[in-house]
């Protein structure tokens, strides 16, 4: 199982993806003439002036939702791993990918807004929707949707709960008690 996971990762997280993430960010930064710097003031203004409606949530709420998704085990344990395996310099590359990545985030989130839909009184959207509508390739959108359900429904929650379990083990000491304690909460 572990071997399988490792060999899949060696393919997915080859240096190609590393440079794709950095390169795309740099590309969109140039194309938008560094929107992440130019519109900094506007970002703050928008956060403070958001309105919500019956169908949608306000800009501030959407930020909180996405921030709560963003700020997770990665911010505490992920940074530790980056330093532990990559040395202190890895922190610098985290900053670089965040700075350029902000332009990528602008592009993907604006796409999501443009192609959003109203369904059962709430707004829905995301890559599957914009891929279908802007690219016109339904099969590609389906692959994204299924991958996302697998990733967000199974693969990613494992990391989060593992972080919680690990942090508690470091407090109470090792032994089966903490994982099984958490497990009991999980089952109730």
């Amino acid at each position, binding site marked *: 199982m572990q071997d399988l996971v490792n060999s*899949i990762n060696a393919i997915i997280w080859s240096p190609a*993806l*590393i440079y*794709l*993430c950095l390169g*795309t960010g740099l590309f969109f930064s140039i*194309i938008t003439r560094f929107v992440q710097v130019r519109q900094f003031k506007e*970002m703050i203004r928008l956060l403070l002036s958001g309105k919500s409606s019956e169908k949608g949530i306000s*800009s501030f*709420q959407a*930020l*909180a*939702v*996405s*921030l709560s998704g*963003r*700020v*997770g085990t990665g911010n*505490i344990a*992920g*940074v*530790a*791993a980056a*330093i532990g*395996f*990559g040395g*202190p*310099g890895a*922190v*610098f590359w985290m*900053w670089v*990918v965040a700075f350029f*990545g*902000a332009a990528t*985030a602008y592009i*993907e*989130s604006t*796409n999501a*807004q443009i*192609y*959003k839909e109203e369904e059962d009184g709430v*707004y829905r959207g*995301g890559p*599957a929707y*914009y891929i279908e*509508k*802007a*690219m016109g390739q339904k099969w590609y*959108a389906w692959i994204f949707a299924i*991958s996302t359900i*697998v*990733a967000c*429904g199974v*693969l990613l929650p494992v990391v*989060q*709960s593992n972080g*919680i379990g*690990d942090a508690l083990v470091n407090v109470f000491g090792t032994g089966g008690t903490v*994982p099984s304690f*958490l497990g009991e909460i999980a089952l109730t």
Partner: protein
Amino acid sequence: MLILGFIIFGGVKRIANFTQIVVPFMALAYIIIACVIIGMHIDILPSIFMSIITDAFTPMAGFGAAIGWGVKRGVYSNEAGQGTGPHAAAAAEVEHPAQQGLVQAFSVYIDTLFVCSATAFMILITQSYNVLPEGSSTFIVQNLAADVVISGPAFTQIAVDSVLTGFGKPFIAIALFFFAFTTILAYYFIAENNVSYINRTIKIPALRFVLKVILMSAVFYGTVAQPSAAWGMGDIGVGLMAWLNIIGILIIFFMAKPAIKALKDYEAQQKAGVKNYTFDPKKLGITNATFWEERFDKAQSKSQASTKDNES
């Protein structure tokens, strides 16, 4: 877990309300603690900063390792390009799509420049880390015992504990509980959104329920899994989504440039100093944005009606 169940079964709006209260509060508490710890070692802060910069270009662990781990864990944390952020972005009520793009870009800043940096400085300034390249058994830097787990919260817990003895480990455990808990909620929201997408074509009513059960089991599995196995699975998830989403947005850019058109339109309105922003996809040559077309037409007919009222 009961709370998780209550929120998940309660729908999107409730998720939003819950996270809005918890996230800013806990992130702030975390940053304050980090400031306290950094403040106690303020004299070596410049040298820590320098060591990050110099090590970035002449990394002790090798260039590939530094850039690779930095980008990998950076994307893991700020999710730029991964395609998770757009789900929450779509749910927002805004006057103009570009506004949500800007807010989300800001969220990347907060995540990495504030929260990740807080963690990094805490760990580095208190020397609570080891550096062990993958596949190697010799430490390049060893400040801690060899058996401290690298891909876990241990470094951070030891860092806080070294200054606030006895407080650090439980504090990080609690902070992590809240951070991770809300992240799991966000994952559910994202997965559910894609279930909705699939349900548009094929109605499978049980799909939502199955998702809830599977997600709960995954959470349970995570508590008993080895950190390396858990992160291995997570990396597959992030990598898979990032590949598909980044290629998608690049193709969309070359086909239609909708986000760039929206930005130019927004900046033109900004320059004109309008109070209420409007978005007319037809005028910009953006097709299939049905929601905005309808909204713009509605607003048009309303304003025409009101001018007629004024005339009569």
